[in-house]
């Protein structure tokens, strides 16, 4: 259910951090000025709120529709009614579907599904483990190869071999197709500012529009089956690769390109011999992000019959079987970690090999050959013999994991609910309710004006204009009031995300050990299907907005932590040294040196935190947040609410774009 947003990505983030210069001497003065203006805006807003409370709030009941929503419905219906006669479908969408279906089915018959004349796939578990180990070693190093072999064997022990292979097949095809488009588009966006400007809004849209909104229409276009699942996945997973590729092309030093030009290279030569090879490493990071995003879609895709682990999770959750769901979720996490580490190692390999002074280089080729031969034998065995084709274990490990999870969950639910309720009520009554009232009960034009004013003050005129456009469109969607409710929860969640992000980010940034220990859990929190942990949260906090906020925090805080940790780590050691020699204690170093100098990272973390929180709005709608998230889910489930769901989806995108532009502009201002 996770709708991940990789707006800016790790390498990008790091790039931004490195650019953060020292604060200007005048910046302090200016910031005080800006703070005063912001405070003034808020005071005016509050005063007007008390006068105008409850007027022109644009509320819309759950079942009510606007003309726009009905128009969306009609559009959807007419597409459905005409799909068999429309040439666009017959010659275009059907062809695409056919190609993708063929690709997925091919991979599935290779590793996961029984194929023609065989009760088992062409390559059994032993062969797959062999191939994965070999490839990881060939493109990465022996350590990740070991990890990959262990991870894949673990799927078998969990009793989830076939499901994992289905998920792998789908992920591989989606990533493959995504990259087929993403890398050329990314290169283009890297070369042409104009194209970059054109494509950026589309990428924003693809990443913030909740998948639920287009899942049903997608099956109209591409029918039920692997093609739709693959396309749903790649819509969401391609943007990071495009962005990162563009970024990589842009970061190739200008002199190098100029040098190639001065030697008379054609555009093609410059691209093939200079730009692409030099950005390869960063592009692999993009591939990595795409894989992660694709895995985050596994459970959603299960709603349109995508095979694999997502189905197991969904089915287990129908009967609230947290243990089984967790077991399957764990398999997704393991798959994610394996793929992440292997691609990361692959991107670093060439350089590492260059450093390691040729000692193994002479041996590498023969060893690779031997490895290939061994793999071939394993593949042959797994093709021929049953013991190598079907994983021999019954999945006892999986059962053990399930029952342990159940025990832990029950204990937590039984013993912690007192504390958690108090915490929930404190946040809800103290922070969320007043804030939400202010947003939803003010007249829409007042909120709009306040938002625009804040946009101008924080981000400058251009951000102000963007905000104005977004506010206008939000009103147009007809779900203004729900948008404001969602906005309130989103902002509260973001504040909490930043608190956690700063505490853990600083801790991780200061200690490599803590970083190493925490990172796998952070990765897990990002790929684990949210509902797996939401069931116990529901028991702890009830179906409330707070549960939704917690879900958002679990998902968004890791990103903030990672960015802030990087920011703190990038503070020059000499500056810290200077502070230490001036007699600063640890607290002073953190508050007076490391955090201020990581200000760029903090802004970026806020931006990303917000966008990630927004991407959990739909999940929030499933656990009591109501508002936009619920509109989207209901629109997905009930035909007559489709249009409203679509409008709510647009509203989420608009909120995302609005905050992205304001925070980015603000970040540029503070660091410029």
């Amino acid at each position, binding site marked *: 259910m996770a709708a991940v947003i990789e707006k800016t990505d790790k390498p990008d983030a790091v790039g931004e951090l490195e650019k953060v210069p020292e604060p200007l001497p005048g910046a302090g003065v200016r910031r005080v000025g800006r703070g005063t203006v912001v405070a003034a805006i808020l005071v005016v807003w509050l005063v007007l709120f008390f006068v105008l409370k409850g007027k022109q709030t644009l509320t819309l009941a759950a079942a009510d529709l606007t003309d726009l929503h009905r128009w969306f419905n009609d559009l959807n219906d007419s597409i459905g009614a005409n799909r068999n006669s429309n040439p666009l479908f017959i010659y275009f969408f059907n062809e695409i579907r056919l190609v993708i279906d063929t690709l997925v089915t091919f991979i599935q018959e290779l590793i996961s599904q029984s194929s023609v004349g065989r009760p088992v796939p062409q390559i059994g578990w032993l062969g797959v483990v062999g191939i994965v180990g070999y490839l990881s070693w060939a493109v990465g190093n022996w350590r990740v190869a070991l990890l990959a072999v262990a991870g894949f064997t673990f799927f078998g022990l969990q009793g989830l071999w076939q499901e994992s292979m289905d998920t792998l097949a789908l992920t591989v095809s989606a990533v493959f197709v995504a990259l087929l488009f993403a890398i050329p588009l990314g290169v283009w966006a890297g070369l042409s500012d104009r194209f970059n400007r054109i494509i950026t809004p589309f990428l924003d849209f693809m990443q913030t529009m909740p998948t639920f909104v287009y899942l049903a229409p997608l099956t109209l276009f591409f029918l039920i089956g692997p093609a739709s699942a693959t396309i749903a996945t790649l819509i969401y997973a391609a943007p990071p690769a495009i962005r990162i590729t563009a970024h990589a092309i842009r970061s190739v030093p200008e002199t190098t390109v*100029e*040098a190639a030009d001065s030697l008379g290279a054609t555009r093609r030569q410059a691209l093939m011999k200079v730009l692409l090879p030099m950005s390869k490493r960063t592009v692999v990071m993009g591939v990595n992000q795409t894989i992660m995003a694709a895995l985050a879609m596994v459970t959603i895709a299960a709603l349109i019959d995508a095979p694999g682990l997502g189905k197991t999770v969904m089915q287990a959750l129908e009967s609230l079987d947290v243990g089984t769901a967790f077991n399957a979720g764990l398999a997704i996490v393991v798959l994610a970690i394996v793929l992440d580490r292997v691609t990361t190692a692959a991107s670093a390999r060439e350089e590492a090999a260059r450093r390691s002074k040729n000692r193994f280089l002479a041996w590498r080729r023969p060893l690779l050959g031997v490895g290939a031969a061994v793999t071939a034998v394993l593949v042959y065995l797994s093709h021929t013999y049953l013991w190598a084709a079907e994983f021999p274990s019954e999945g006892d490990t999986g059962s053990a994991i399930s029952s342990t999870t159940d025990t832990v969950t029950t204990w937590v639910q039984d013993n912690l609910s007192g504390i958690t309720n108090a915490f929930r009520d404190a946040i809800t009554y103290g922070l969320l309710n007043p804030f939400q009232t202010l947003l939803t009960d003010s007249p829409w034009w007042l909120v709009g004006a306040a938002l625009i004013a804040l946009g101008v003050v924080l981000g400058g005129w251009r951000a102000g204009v963007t905000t104005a456009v977004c506010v206008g469109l939000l009103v147009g969607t007809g779900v203004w009031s729900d948008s404001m409710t969602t906005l309130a929860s989103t902002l509260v969640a973001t504040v909490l995300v930043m608190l956690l992000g700063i505490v853990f980010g600083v801790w991780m940034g200061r200690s490599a050990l803590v970083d190493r220990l925490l990172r796998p859990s952070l990765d897990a929190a990002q790929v684990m299907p949210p509902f797996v942990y939401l069931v116990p949260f529901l028991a702890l906090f009830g179906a409330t907005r707070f549960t939704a906020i917690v879900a958002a925090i679990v998902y968004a805080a890791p990103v903030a932590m990672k960015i802030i940790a990087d920011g703190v780590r990038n503070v020059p050691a000499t500056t810290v040294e200077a502070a230490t020699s001036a007699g600063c204690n640890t607290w002073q170093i953190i508050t007076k040196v490391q955090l201020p100098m990581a200000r760029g990272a903090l802004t970026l973390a806020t931006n990303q935190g917000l966008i990630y929180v927004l991407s959990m709005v739909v999940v929030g709608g499933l656990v009591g947040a109501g508002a936009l998230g619920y509109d989207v889910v209901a629109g997905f489930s009930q035909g007559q609410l489709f249009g409203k769901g679509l409008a709510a989806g647009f509203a989420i995108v608009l909120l995302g774009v609005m905050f992205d532009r304001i925070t980015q502009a603000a970040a540029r201002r503070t660091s410029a």
Partner: protein
Amino acid sequence: MTPTQTAVPQLSSTPQDPDGTPVISVRRLWKVFGPKAEQVPESEELCGLTRRELMDRTGCTAAVRDVNFDVRKGEVFVVMGLSGSGKSTLVRCLTRLIEPTAGELVFEGEDIREADGKRLRDLRRSKFSMVFQHFGLLPHRRVVDNVAFGLEIRGMGKAERIKRALEVVELVGLSGYENSYPDQLSGGMQQRVGLARALAGDPDVLFFDEPFSALDPLIRRDMQNEVIRLHREVGKTMVFITHDLSEALKLGDRILIMRDGKMVQCGTGDELVGAPADDYVREFVKDVPRGDVLTLRWIMRPAEPDDPLDGPELGPDVVVKEATRAVLAADKPVKVVENGELLGIVGDEEILAVVAGQEGDM
């Protein structure tokens, strides 16, 4: 301030040159950045504005303004200026890495500005090459592959280009490092790779864009000597950009000084020191050890009737420093003679004035 005003004692500078056509001939060259840039060189009024005024009026920056010069075959032509003077833009305009806004750009009789993409690439592949301040090497390729890169681009076969590359690698003194990667080399060595890459294609003209600015002083000196050696050995025409006057004086046959996109003065080193065109140049050359640069031509005085004319003879282009010993050793003033004609005489007094640095302004 136009170049004609500055050309005070232009003994050997631009147009009317004795030995045939120049390799590169630049006339009224402009590069303006900004909206509607092409209007600026056309408008007499805008041409007259200072950079700042132009910026305020039109939002345009004139990086190169009305520059004229010729580069002779086989000479080292240095363009010198501080950062922002437009020298790097100028050198890029010469190969159209940056497209000039207006002016004429003739290379070996061909107007380069008229060349289409293909012709321009051909020129770059065979006639020009460039060495960059930040090297611009390809980190994923070995040294020899970097050197061979230009040849590869031309479509030369692998064996042939590697062979040629190895020759050049040897020429720049990098033997033994062919198989290293750029990031395993020091800055100076990386620039040798850049140099080798430029030489590998056997171009007619080498362009250097502040090639040694990023290097340590000692290494810089080595590299300068290396360029001098290479110039002697391969005799290429070179256009060399620098912000360092001593480098300019050391390498340059002739030097063009730029300020705010305009030429201030163009001439040999001794002309700049001996006859600065204005205060800007004067300030620049103030700290130059004059004895190292000036020739006797600059310090001689006309022979007066009571001067003894039986002292030793020296040519007018002998540098003061080298003449010092001879002049001081002689008990009579030295005659400066060119082609048997007496140009003037130099005595202890003149020499000491230069060497002691008291000879404020001539």
